[in-house]
C-alpha cells in the first residue's frame, strides 16, 4: 500500500488557503489583479503542501468527471440550447443601434482620418465633464485615462504620440468603453449627452483603427447597464 503519512494540522489550513486561492484564481468574478494574487498563493501552497493539495485537486477532478459522466447527454442538450440562445441573442438582441447618425456626427469631433494606421495601445478619452481621476477599462486594453476638459491643442499632442483619442459629446456626464463581439465592431465608447441622448463611438479594427461615429438615439429603451465598463 502506498498510504500517505499523516500531516500536521497547519498543512490543512495551508491546503484550504491554496484551494480557495485556486478557485479565486479561476473565478470569473475576480479582477485580474486579484486573480494573479490568488494564483501565486495557490502555487505557493502547492509547493508547501503538495500532498493535501494534490489529493484535493484529484478528488474535485473526480467529482467533476463523475458529474459529466452521469449527465453528459443532458449537458450536451443544454449546451446546444444555450449556444443557440447565445447566437440568437447576439444576432437579434437589442444593440441600441442608433437611428440618427447625422445628429451624432454634428456633435462629435471628426478624427477618423487622423487615426488611420496608428498602433493603438491606449485609448484616451477627452471628456469635458469627466473627473480627472476617472478611469475606464476595456478587455485586453490598457486603462483608459479620462482627461479633464478637452482641449484641441492637447488632442493634437496625443495624436502625435500615437494615442488613440476619442472625444465625447459636449456636456456628456460620463463615458464607458465596451468591447463588442459581433462583426467588425470591436471596441466602442458610449456616452449620454446633456439631453440624455445615447451616443455611440465605435472603433472598427478592420478599418485600420478608425473611430466611427454611428449615431445617437433617444433612450426610449434604456440598456440595463448604462454606464459600465466591463473587464
Amino acid at each position, binding site marked *: 500500500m502506498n498510504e500517505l503519512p499523516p500531516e500536521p494540522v497547519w498543512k490543512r489550513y495551508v491546503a484550504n488557503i491554496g*484551494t480557495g486561492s485556486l*478557485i479565486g484564481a479561476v*473565478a*470569473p*468574478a*475576480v*479582477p485580474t489583479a*486579484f486573480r494573479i494574487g490568488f494564483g501565486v498563493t495557490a502555487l505557493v501552497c502547492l509547493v508547501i503542501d503538495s500532498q493535501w493539495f494534490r489529493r*484535493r485537486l484529484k*478528488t*474535485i477532478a*473526480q*467529482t*467533476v468527471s*463523475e*458529474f459529466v459522466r*452521469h*449527465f453528459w*447527454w443532458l449537458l450536451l*442538450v*443544454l449546451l446546444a*440550447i*444555450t449556444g*443557440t*440562445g*447565445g447566437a*440568437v*441573442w447576439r444576432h*437579434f*438582441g*437589442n*444593440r*441600441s443601434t442608433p437611428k440618427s447618425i447625422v445628429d451624432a456626427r454634428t456633435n462629435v469631433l471628426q478624427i477618423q482620418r487622423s487615426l488611420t494606421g496608428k498602433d493603438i495601445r491606449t485609448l484616451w478619452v477627452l471628456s469635458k465633464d469627466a*473627473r480627472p481621476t*476617472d478611469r475606464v*477599462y476595456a478587455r485586453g486594453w490598457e486603462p483608459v485615462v479620462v482627461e479633464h476638459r478637452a482641449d484641441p491643442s492637447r488632442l493634437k499632442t496625443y495624436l502625435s504620440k500615437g494615442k488613440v483619442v476619442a472625444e465625447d459629446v459636449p456636456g456628456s*456626464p*460620463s463615458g*464607458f468603453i*465596451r468591447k*463588442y*463581439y*459581433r462583426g467588425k465592431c470591436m471596441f*466602442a465608447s458610449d456616452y*449620454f449627452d*446633456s*439631453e*440624455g441622448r445615447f451616443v455611440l463611438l465605435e472603433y472598427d479594427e478592420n478599418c485600420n483603427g478608425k473611430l466611427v461615429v454611428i449615431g445617437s438615439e433617444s433612450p*426610449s*429603451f*434604456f*440598456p*440595463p*447597464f*448604462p*454606464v*459600465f*465598463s*466591463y*473587464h
Partner: protein
Amino acid sequence: MLERGFAEFVLFVTCFAVLAIFTPPLLLPTSAPIWIFLLLESILLGVAMDLAQLLTAAVSPERDLPKLDHPVPEPSVAVLFLVCDDVVPEALAALGHQTHPRTDLFVLDDSGDRRVQALVDAAPFRVVRRLDRTGNKAGNINHWLRLHGGRYDYFLVLDSDSIVSDDFVEQLLRYAEHPSNRDVAVFNSLPVCWNTASPFPRLAAICTPIHNWMRLRLANRLPSIFSTGHNNLHRTLAVLAVGGFDERFVAEDIALTLRLIRGGYTSRLVNLTAGEAEPEHVFSHVRRLERWAAQTIEILRADWRSVSLVLRYQMFRQTWFYLMFFFYPLTALLAAWGMRSTAPHPGTLSSSAIAFAVLIASIPLIPALLKIPLALSLGISVADYAKSRILWASIAWYAMLSVCAAQLVAAMDGTFAFAVTDKRKRGIHLTTIVAHHWHLIPFWLFLAAGFYRNTAHPLSSVVWLTFGCIAPLLVYWFHGTTREAGDVAQ
C-alpha cells in the same frame, strides 16, 4: 418505446429552449458581457425545470400504486426507530400503537449522549446499539439487518421525528402484498409536517401539500423514485439481495435505490401520509441544507449504471437545486467586481431601467406565481404562501456561503462528517443569527468595496441587493414570537 416519465423531460427541454432562445434578445443588450448571459441562462434553466414539473403535473391524473382492499395480517414487520442524539419525545411517545398484529418495534440508538440514551432506555421498546457509528444511518440499519433482518418480511424505517398513524403499517402492507407490486422494494409515503405550532417550521413546510400534489401525479410515472430515507416500508428480502444499505454514502436512501435498480427492483410512492418535523430554527434548517447539499454531491460518486435517463434527469434537478446556491454569491461578486462604473447622470436613469432590473430579478418568480392557484386550491392562503417563498429565499441568501462550502468540501474531500439535524428548540436572537453566519459580514464588505468602484450598479441591482442585505432580519422575523423559547427538549 419511450420511458415512463419521459414527458416531463421533453417538456423541460422545450421550456428551456423557448426561454433560453427568446428571453436574452428581449432582455439583454448585446453589449452586455457574456457572464450576464450565462447567469440569465442558469436562472432560466431552473425556471424551465420548475415549469416542466408543474405543467406535467397539471395535465396528469393522480397515480397511486394498486393495493389490496383488505388487511393482510400474515407478514411480519419490524418498525425501526432511528435515533442519534436527537430523540424527539413526542415521536417516541407515539410509537408502539400499530394495528398490524405482527409488528415488532426496535429503537436503533446510535446516540453518544447519556441523557438521550437514558430517555430511550426508559421507553418500553427493544433498543439495539452498536459499538461505533460506522456507516452512519446505513451502518445502523445494516447492523440490525444482520442481527434480526432474516426474521421479518418487511421493515419500516422511521426517523426520530417521525409520527405515523396507528394503521400505517397495515395500510402499507396492502400495497406491498399486492401481486402487481412484487418488484417494488421500497414503499415511500408523503410527508406532512406535524410541528406546526412554531411559525418557522410551519412556514418552512407550508408548500409541502403542493409538493405532495405534484409527486402524486409524477412520481409513479418514473421507472423508480429515489427512496425518501424515512417513513418508508422496505421489502427485507430485496434489500438483503442487493447487499443491504451502501455504507459508503451519507445519502443512504439514494444509494440503496441505485442498488435496488441494478438488482431489478424499484422504489415507489404510495398515497399515504406520515408525519415528520421541520427544523425548529434556522440554524438546524441550514445544517440540514448543508448536509443534503453535500450528500447530493457525494452520491455522484456512486455506481449509476443501469439507471434510466429520466431518473438521471431527476438527479440532475436535485443537483442543480444545490448548485444554484453558487449562483447567489457568484452573481453578487460579478455585479460588484465584474465591471466598473461611475454614478449615472440623473437624466440617464430612466424608470424603464429600474423596471428592467425588477423584471430580471422577477424571472425566478414565474413558477412561484403560477403555483398560487394550486396553493389556494390546497387551502394555502396567498399570504402564507408568499411568506413561505420569502422565507426560503431569505434562507438561501443567508445560507449561501455555508451551503456552497459544504458542497466544495464534499467535492474536494471525498468524505464528509455526517451531521445529525438538530431537533431541539433554542433561543433565537438577531445577534445570534448574524453571528452564526459571521462570514457574511466580510463578504458583504468585500461587495461594498466593489460597488464603491462600480457606483451605478447597485441601482440596477437594487432588488436582490436589498433582499440579500436584509435576509438575516427576515429570517429572524419569521421565527415569530417563539424565537425566545428555550431548549425544551433538553
